[in-house]
């Protein structure tokens, strides 16, 4: 332990702590900007300056190691003035159109200026040059708002290992963006939006498509159907000042209904459908490998996450065959709504507008993929992020907190708890195992409360083994087989896992990958800023939703059985192959 004094208060901190952490330990709030817990501590912005006795200049507390006997002042006029100057300098280069900015009232720079009592701008001059990058479907960048904090660079490079964003140029002309000042569409950006999720200002955001939704809702010739992803229900409340992890499924449904959506369905339904298809695909691959002794590509990778798909297409094209051919739940829902449901209500696919509410920016680009039109029209028309939905609810003048709960519409609004946990890292794996194990053995998955705890939680790469015993006759070839599974979240971890698999250092049957840290609950379209603490709360809420349901397993969902019976036939059958599966192509890297 290290003993130090902060503002005359003696305290003890653990070896390796920074001064900032020490300050937080005793409740001193140091303003920060480039610092983001668990993501980045580089001392770049200089907002977190403090004075340390014996050091001439002020130091950045986020990177200053606490040392024995250190005497720190965090709140004297020298420190306050220096921080103020730093923020004023940032304001002097920053495009100050706060009122029309997406981040108005949700902007860290704005709050800092407010909290520091900046009431006049003493410095003025040339502004950061404006370059608006609208080249991709998911993300929009505006360099005039960028304050070069580099959080986006770190998540893109260190956490996702995608490295689409760099600092470039020098001096005042330093910009952050794709190499050679290109647009995002020319580089290997996987559209995950983690950059947008950590941006403290309005420099990177999702493409705003709320107007398109309003237009659809206003169009009497259209049937506007909405689906909401599992992760939304644990985060949307944050847009209205509610605690992270507050479940708002019912309020959300009421809000959507009052905004005028014609049908409100749950992506959970198609998540259950995914389990049926993907579970069957896994078992088929295992059968081919173990019984038919055919060349089969294993491990099989989950395919729910569009950024992960792009990541494999860009960086691991040799492993495309490992990806499950299942479409993601969003796309399965789109295809089902525009065929199965359309038939039920007697509409043509083009008369339906399919809107998705996703925690994700990449879902926008997934929906726009050329091949996603098996219904005869583009299966999903408009994708909104959680944040965009929040904006729309505000705009509609709905008092969200005061709303009554209501239920989603049948039949595609019915789902199991297994579908809910698709939102969490390890959740798809757990949902699949619940079904596969029971299908093969006729018994429930032998984990307490059905939770595969070894693959849950925020550790980067997790794995588990399950030995199958007491199989039903149909699956007797699996008797005694130990199924090896692995789960990774954040693409940097996925890369590590893939390298191991490619090198033959690890052998798995089934691998789940989610691009965003923590899974979809930490998606690039979720309310900002998602810290580990927020992730834990959202994850817990999702598990609570699961546990609160009577139906816990996808194959128990009667609406699913009904859909197969009425429409699809059997998992991996002809129609499901047509509507619910897809294929992948290698993408060229620049």
């Amino acid at each position, binding site marked *: 332990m290290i003993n130090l004094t902060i503002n005359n208060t003696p305290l003890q901190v653990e070896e390796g702590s920074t001064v900032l952490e020490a300050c937080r330990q005793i409740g001193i709030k140091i303003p920060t900007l480039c610092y983001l817990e668990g993501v980045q501590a580089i001392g770049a912005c200089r907002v977190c300056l403090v004075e340390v006795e014996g050091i001439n*200049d002020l130091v950045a507390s986020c990177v200053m190691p606490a040392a024995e006997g250190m005497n720190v002042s965090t709140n004297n006029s020298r420190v306050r003035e220096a921080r103020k100057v730093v923020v004023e*300098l940032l304001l002097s280069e920053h495009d100050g159109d706060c009122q029309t900015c997406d981040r108005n009232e949700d902007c860290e720079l704005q709050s800092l200026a407010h909290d520091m009592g900046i009431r006049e701008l003493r410095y003025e001059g040339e502004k950061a040059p404006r370059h608006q990058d609208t080249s991709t479907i998911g993300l929009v960048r505006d360099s005039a708002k960028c304050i070069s904090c580099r959080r986006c660079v770190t998540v893109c490079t260190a956490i996702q290992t995608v490295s689409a964003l760099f600092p470039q140029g020098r001096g005042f002309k330093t910009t952050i963006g794709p190499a050679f000042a290109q647009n995002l569409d020319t580089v290997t950006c996987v559209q995950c939006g983690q950059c947008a999720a950590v941006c403290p200002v309005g420099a990177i955001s999702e493409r705003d498509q709320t107007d398109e939704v309003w237009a659809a809702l206003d169009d009497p010739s259209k049937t506007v159907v909405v689906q909401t992803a599992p992760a939304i229900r644990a985060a949307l409340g944050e847009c209205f000042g509610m605690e992270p992890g507050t479940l708002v499924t019912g309020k959300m449904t009421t809000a959507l209904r009052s905004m005028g959506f014609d049908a409100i369905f749950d992506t959970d339904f198609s998540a259950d459908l995914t389990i049926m298809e993907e579970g069957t695909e896994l078992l088929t691959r295992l059968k081919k490998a173990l019984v038919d002794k055919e060349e089969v590509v294993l491990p099989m990778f989950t395919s729910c996450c569009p950024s992960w798909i792009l990541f494999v297409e860009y960086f691991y094209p040799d492993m495309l065959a490992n990806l499950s051919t299942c479409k993601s739940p969003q796309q399965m829902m789109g295809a089902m709504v525009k065929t199965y449901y359309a038939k039920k209500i007697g509409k043509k696919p083009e008369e339906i507008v399919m809107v998705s509410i996703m925690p994700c920016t990449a879902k926008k680009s997934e929906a726009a993929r050329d091949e996603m039109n098996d219904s005869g029209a583009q299966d999903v028309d408009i994708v909104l992020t959680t944040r965009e939905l929040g904006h729309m609810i505000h705009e509609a003048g709905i008092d969200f907190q005061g709303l009554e709960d209501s239920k989603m519409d049948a039949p595609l609004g019915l789902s199991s708890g297994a579908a809910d946990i698709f939102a969490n890292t390890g959740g798809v794996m757990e949902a699949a195992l619940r079904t596969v194990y029971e299908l093969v053995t006729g018994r429930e998955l032998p984990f307490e409360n059905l939770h595969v705890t070894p693959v849950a939680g925020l550790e980067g790469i997790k794995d588990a083994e399950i030995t199958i015993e007491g199989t039903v006759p149909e699956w007797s070839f699996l008797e005694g087989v130990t199924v090896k599974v692995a789960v990774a979240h954040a693409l940097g971890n996925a890369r590590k896992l893939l390298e191991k698999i490619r090198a033959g250092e690890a052998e798995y049957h089934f691998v789940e990958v989610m691009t965003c840290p923590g899974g979809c609950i930490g998606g690039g379209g979720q309310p900002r800023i998602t810290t580990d603490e927020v992730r834990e709360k959202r994850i817990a809420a999702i598990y609570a939703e699961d546990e609160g349901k009577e139906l816990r397993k996808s194959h128990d969902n009667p609406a699913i059985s009904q859909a197969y019976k009425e429409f699809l036939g059997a998992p991996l059958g002809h129609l499901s192959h047509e509507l619910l599966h897809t294929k992948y192509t290698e993408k060229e890297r620049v």
Partner: protein
Amino acid sequence: MSKKIKSLADLEKLQLLEVKKLGLRMDHSVPESNDNTPREILVCVGGGCLASGALKICEAFNLAIEENGLSQKVTVVETGCMGPCAAGPVAKIMPDNVFYQGITVEDAKTIVEQHIMQGLVVQHLLYKDAVSGQPVANIDDIEYFKRQNKVVLRNCGNIDPLKISEYIAVKGYQALAKAVSSMSSEAVIDSMLQSGLRGRGGGGFPTGLKWKFTYEAESDSKSVVCNADEGDPGAFMDRSVLEGDPHSVIEGMAIAGYAVGAARGYVYCRAEYPVAIERLQKAIDQAREVGLLGENILGSDFNFDLEIRMGSGAFVCGEETALMTSIEGNRGEPRPRPPFPAIKGLWGKPTVLNNVETFASVAVIISEGAEKYAELGTEKSKGTKVFALAGAVNNTGLVEVPIGISLGELLYDIGGGMIDGKPFKAAQLGGPSGGCIPKEHLNVALDYESLNELGAIMGSGGLIVMDEDSCMVDVARFFLEFVQEESCGKCTPCRVGTKRMLEILERICDGKGEEGDIEKLLTLGQQIKETALCGLGKTAANPVLSTIRHFREEYEEHIRDKKCRAGVCAGLVRAPCQSACPASVDIPGFVSLVGEKRYAEALMLHRERNPFAAACARICFHTCEDHCRRATLDSPISIRGIKRFMVEQEVVIQVPECKENKKNAAKKIAIVGAGPAGLSCAYFLARLGYKPTLYEAAPRPGGMMAQTIPSYRLPREILAREIRMIERLGVDIQCNKTLGKDFTLEELKEQGCEAVFMAIGAPDGLMLGLPGEEAEGVCEAISFLREYNIRGSVPVGKNVVIIGGGNAAIDAARTAARLDAESVIVVYRRTRDQMPAYEEEIEEAEAEGVELKLLTSPEEIIVENGNVTGIRCKSMELGTFDRSGRRRSVAGDQADFIIPCDQVIAAIGQRVDLPPLIGQVSLAVKRDGYLKTDSVTKQTSEEWIFAGGDVATGPSSVIDAVADGEKAAAGIDLMLTGKDNAFWRAEKKVDTFFDPDADPVMYEREKQPLIPVERRSCNFDEVEQPWDEATAIRQAKRCLRCDYREEATTW
């Protein structure tokens, strides 16, 4: 030589063998040279000489050697940098030790045929002593080399850098051998600590301490990194060492590796140094080949190897953490410290990081002992430092001197003084992180602490010398622009803060500076210093802070007076001559009008800003000519000569526009003192329609122009005519009215005066304060001159001694010489080039028989019977530098001597006794005792009182007084009307013809004719005569028309 060297004994044996081969170079005791003496021609192929064609010179030498059949006994050796880069290509003939410079291909042949074959030194290629102008043959006799002490550069220019054998011959690698065979790591580190060596990259951190920390850090691997990312503008010592003696760096790094326990070393060098990289790589390969790098070095269990990493030339990569980040393969950006590299450096492992110069010093410390090294330098800064001298000094290039030598010694003794003898203004040390040292501090010791105290830094040793032609605001802007462009953009203060500072500076240089800008620069600079992430950012503001500290008045001039005195800032300067003129006369305008024979227009244009055209044509000290750009081509335009011709053409007096203004005419304004300041103020006020009253204590107006400037320089009628011109504008001049006696300031106010301009000068001459000065025959120059000029006669001795070196001294001397004196001697304690009097005046005084007794200080006036009989003097020598940037004169050790004389005239300065004059009014005074005024309006601390001329500036020139009078007139009007009505300040368009594409005419500068010396005695006829018209027109045509701007053409 590819056999492995396996032990110290091997190395020593090899050294003895190799040194024999270098016999010619080692042994300077040359026998009588004849054409049979074997010789080596050492040709510098350092960067500077390469650029000036050294390789061609080598070829030429080889060809001449071959052609003359000398191949057997003459060898050409290509060496590293010898230092005097500006003089390149250079070569040294050994063993004769003769140094040649500025060699051409033809010269190479001459050297072989004359020097080598006939033993005749080629005189015209020798270095010429800056003081005596005499050629010096032996390199050891050349001041530039003699005063240096080469440790780091010990082998540069003496050995072939591409031959490890030559390095070994000069005992290379023996320090490494000593370390690995007989010293522990701790012992090596102790030696480094004892040596007192501090990091030569700029920070000055003790090298031994750095090594100690790295040694103590526990880790499975450690690294040694050499910072060869030299980036300061003008600094190139690291490159020279790498090019000229790469093995010294390899050896230093290997010793560091041994000391801290590192097996791996990296040299981080910018790709812009291809020659350095190539030579260093060859040296590494050679060292590896003979086993001095690699495993089990010299039979020990010490393993060490090196590789070069190339940087792309980002300045910030010279910062240690950025450098390591770059080596690791990332964008070169600094990271926060702590942790320091010694604990967590390259790839997170302990790392010793020093620069080239530091590593090159290591071997000397280890082999010759720390104590010996520590004998050099000062208490806190040991050893030597290499400086890259650049700019306005005669000898530019690399010099290595013991730390602690004074800046003045470096510039004048080694650097050979300023080019063209111009006054030194400032030295910029330490590149963009550094600061400026002004002339007041030429004595500063070049060591880390002393420089820091003055706001500069040692830095990497870049030293740029500047004269009066450098604008300090522009210098700051240049460096800040450099840093801003090189900032990595990571931290806010550096990325945005320096940009905001740069914008302010650019605005100031563009003439758009605002009140408060200086304060803004200071606060922002201080904030950036305290808050930036790395060394680059923390020091980025230094050039600005340091120039504000030492040259604040220059900033103020830019901001308030919209004036750049050096004539540099484009936004403030039409032409440098006009900027240099205190009164901002449109010089290119009147010169070009004279060139078209439009004399009346020319004169009118001149009088827009200065009424005393005819007076100034005779007596102005023409600072305009000192800044004339034509000087860079041949010599300045003779502006005063052209003006003199112009005023001679005046038939009807030419007065520019005057405005009538009844309101103004009704206001009462008093001007006290009818010297150039008072008269000018009256003139400009009159042009605004005022009718001011001038009060003059003397019987005649004109001030010093009438009272002390002798009429052989300024005929009385000429002056009187211009004064009458001013009177005719409605100015009332009342003579014989003395302030404090005949009237007071309070009375003026009571009588309804709304403004008073005090232009009372500094009329009292100072006395010597020597024993005997109360004797008959001792007087001071101002009274002496005034008495003659006003009364028409003054007592003059037979043998007159005048004490002082200013214009008053020369005026008194020439006046005395014209009257009854038989001998006139001017005694001055400094040298002739330090005399404040105008050079042409001194020349004429000498021509008229006045004797100068220089470096002589009066000690006592010898008195007999109450009369002066002589003056006892002491011989002086030049010592250290004083605050004016001149060398002090200090007493020599010769015996005093007596100059017999019967009159002593003291001309050592002037003063004004204010209290009896200003009475009860309290006016703020400056530290020098003169009135404090606003630089733009000349307003004093009392709102209604303005002041200008000598009473505000101290004794100064007529043209400065005219400028003050003009400012005061505008200031008074501004106070009374609240508006800026100074219409004469608007730029006048001159429609003279100029062809920008034509070549400049190549007429030479001519002097004005003078009446012969024999016709000057016993009369006060004007000495200087005007040119004829043809000459004047020719001279006017020499103007390069710096004022010319291409007009945008709109079609």
